[in-house]
């Protein structure tokens, strides 16, 4: 309706199988020049696979890709790039030891007579960053940037090749509100420049705000494509999940136990002035932007990167863990945010992963399947958490994110810690598994454990927690009671909480 132009991109009847699984089946969609086409679906619905096919990382088993009406096939990302496709990938792929400029032009370095043209390189990088209204210095080392800045560099990298088709895979995941809105402005400008934008996102408001059409995927198949106006959030979610969101968050408990954890004036190199209390039976959410110190807080309490200042009490006893082992021994558990890098031994079996902490504390020469580490007990525990796998002695890398996370939960439940710290418990996990994990968290609290939940997902923090502690620049800047709105939390997180008087706000700072 808005456009009569022929599509810039068509993906027709795309299918892709991996050994033992069919990831995509007969998926088609098109994107016209100047159109923003959103792709939605739960994690595992096949969005990423579809984008990887478009980016030349995977080759489809069936179907066809057309660029401006011409059939195309990509054996390597470089071919997709040459065909005018730019991709902002979900996983950060920066080189930490190289400069921002080097990262931005990577793969398409400007040369003069075969020699790298560093002046042009920096000028080009600067220009792209300027278009993004970013003040990142092009000579900075990428590894020294904050996560949000790194995400900006990723975006700049995709724009560097001046793509006619731009794929954005969850581009705002690490950005704060103002950065995200700047990005959306940019998308609008690109749209005006007749770039075809394929926009993959979880964030419903963004999709509503920016996209022209929406395609919903579920279980590797296309559910529908429709104009965004015709897709209110409720309908969209129903299409994606097959049910309503309301039943998502478990009801809060009433338990008000004694104080479990008390942090007084805690601090280290990244965080300071931390005062925090967690009671038994309570889920305390920790909100804040990326880089606000949430993760550092979790690690400090756990003992992995300990506090160097201040004191802690656990169960009324002085608690000063110097290592994760100390933390565990005292009754704390920690589920790291980066599961692949910090949580899982990918090549080992589900059972081995589930028994990891038990084995860390068992006698070295005990049978690996002694007592609680026995297969029967482990399997029971895994089944209780509804872990789905063909076999429990398969390597855990074959599992979906949700199931992997459940295995890690099983690992901690075996120790039955008093305090369990969840960092981004549902990052990269599909909706159904999310609900299950929320239920587990609440159930643990109901059974008298204290829960600290670090999350960048605002609906999640607000929906699950009994109390939300908000961090900003390494400090706790405020606290919101149960039932606070996302806006209240966000206001604190971006640092406005104290100065802007908002009588309606439920939060204090």
């Amino acid at each position, binding site marked *: 309706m808005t456009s009569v132009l022929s599509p810039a991109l068509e993906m027709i009847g795309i299918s892709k199988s991996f050994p033992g699984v069919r990831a995509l089946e007969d998926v088609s969609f098109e994107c016209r020049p100047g159109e923003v086409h959103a792709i939605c679906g739960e994690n595992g619905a096949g969005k990423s696979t579809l984008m990887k096919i478009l*980016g030349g*990382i995977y080759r489809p088993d069936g179907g066809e890709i057309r660029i401006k009406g011409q059939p195309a096939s990509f054996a*390597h*990302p*470089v071919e*997709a*790039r*040459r065909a005018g496709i730019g*991709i902002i*990938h979900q*996983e*950060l*792929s*920066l*080189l*930490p*030891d*190289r*400069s921002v400029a*080097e990262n931005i032009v*990577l*793969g*398409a*370095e400007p*040369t003069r007579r*075969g*020699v*790298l043209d560093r002046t042009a390189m920096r000028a080009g990088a600067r220009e792209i960053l300027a278009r993004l209204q970013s003040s990142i*210095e092009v*000579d*900075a*080392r990428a590894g*020294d940037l904050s996560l949000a800045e790194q995400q900006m560099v990723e975006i700049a*990298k995709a724009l560097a*090749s001046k793509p006619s088709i731009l794929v954005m895979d969850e581009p705002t995941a690490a950005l704060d509100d103002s950065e995200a809105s700047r990005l959306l402005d940019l998308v609008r400008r690109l749209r005006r420049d007749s770039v075809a934008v394929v926009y993959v996102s979880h964030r419903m408001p963004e999709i509503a705000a920016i996209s022209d059409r929406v395609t919903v995927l579920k279980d590797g198949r296309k559910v529908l494509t429709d104009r965004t106006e015709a897709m209110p959030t409720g309908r969209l979610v129903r299409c994606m999940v097959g049910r309503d969101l309301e039943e998502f968050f478990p009801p809060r408990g009433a338990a008000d136990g004694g104080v479990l954890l008390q942090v007084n004036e805690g601090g280290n190199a990244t965080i300071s002035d931390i005062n925090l209390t967690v009671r038994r039976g309570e889920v305390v959410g920790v909100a804040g932007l990326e880089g606000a110190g949430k993760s550092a807080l979790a690690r400090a309490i756990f003992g992995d990167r300990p506090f160097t200042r201040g004191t802690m009490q656990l169960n009324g006893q002085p608690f000063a863990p110097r290592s994760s082992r100390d933390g565990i021994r005292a009754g704390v558990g920690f589920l790291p945010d980066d599961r692949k890098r910090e949580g899982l031994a990918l090549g080992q079996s589900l059972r081995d992963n589930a028994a990891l902490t038990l084995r860390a504390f068992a006698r070295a020469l005990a049978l690996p399947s002694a007592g609680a580490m026995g297969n029967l007990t482990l399997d029971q525990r895994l089944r209780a958490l509804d872990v789905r796998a063909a076999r429990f002695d398969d390597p855990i890398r074959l599992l979906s994110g949700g199931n992997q996370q459940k295995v890690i939960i099983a690992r901690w439940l075996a120790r039955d810690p008093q305090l369990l710290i969840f960092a981004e418990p549902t990052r990269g996990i599909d909706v159904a598994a999310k609900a299950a994990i929320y239920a587990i968290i609440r159930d643990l609290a109901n059974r008298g454990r204290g829960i600290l939940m670090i999350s960048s997902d605002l609906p999640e923090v607000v929906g699950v927690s009994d109390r939300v502690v908000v961090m900003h620049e390494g400090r706790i800047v405020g606290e919101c009671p149960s039932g606070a709105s996302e806006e209240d939390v966000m206001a604190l997180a971006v640092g406005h909480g104290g100065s802007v008087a908002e009588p309606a706000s439920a939060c204090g700072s």
Partner: protein
Amino acid sequence: MTLALQPARRRHRAFSVPLLLFIGSAALYLCAALWTQSLNQLSAEGIVGLLQRTVALGTVALGQTLVILCASIDLSVGSMISVGAVLASFIMRGAPAMMVPAVLVVLLVAAGVGAINGLVIAKLKVSPLIATLGSGLILQGVLSSGFNNFAGSVPPAFQAVAYGAIGPLPWSVLGLGLLALGVSWLLRSTRFGAHLYAVGGNAAGARLAGIRTDRVIVQAHTLCSLFAGLTGLYLASRLRSGAPWVGRDGVYDLESIAVVVIGGTMLAGGRGGVWGTIAGVLLFAVIDASFNMLGVPAFPKQVIRGAIVIAAVAVYSLRNKGHVA
């Protein structure tokens, strides 16, 4: 203001290891010479003699730097050096006319071996340690079954490579300097260099950025083997002939890896550079020369050298918070 600080910090990071090694090596050499009153070792002739010790290991190590930067490794260089030395002297058989063909054949064979190494690693996904350990064994076996001693000889004209000099400066030392400059230029100023760091730093990311990572690995290995071939040519010239054990007896495979790592290039790839490697080679040469001056007996020397290898790497890896295996 933090932004203004960053480039300075970067420079510090990139230059401290080589500089430290250079200073440490120079100090060790100076002390040894002064302690033993071998003042002649501080003369031009003495210093040139010291530099001459760096040529063979330095040349291999330059190639090794390239593969380690892209997170690979080459254990076949020792055998490749032997192949290069033997082929050169065997083809030349003392005839000046055969010099050019011999050099060409050696470089061609070296490039071929390197390309195969790279292909086995990149395409067959064989761990580089095993791939090059295997190819080294294959080369050594083939070579030793064909030759069992010094084969042929190089003509006097070719010996100029190792023994010729302009003024006090031997061609070979100059050559190593130029090679080092060349590799440094390659790393800093060409796409290949940028891509090499990218593949070593984050192979998946490099691929996503449209870099043909397989190609980069093959190119790096080809260059590495070429440098090993050059080392073979240099040794053939210096020893006047090539024998199938010159590479193995020189322990160039493990020593080249050791100097690269001592020079601050990470085994995991993506960080490091040429000057660290050169400084590492210099350290090894200084150890040899100083121990000679000090008259350290052979056996204790081995013990001390092993300890220095560990200590040199430990000095800056200690700060590393992550896990190392």
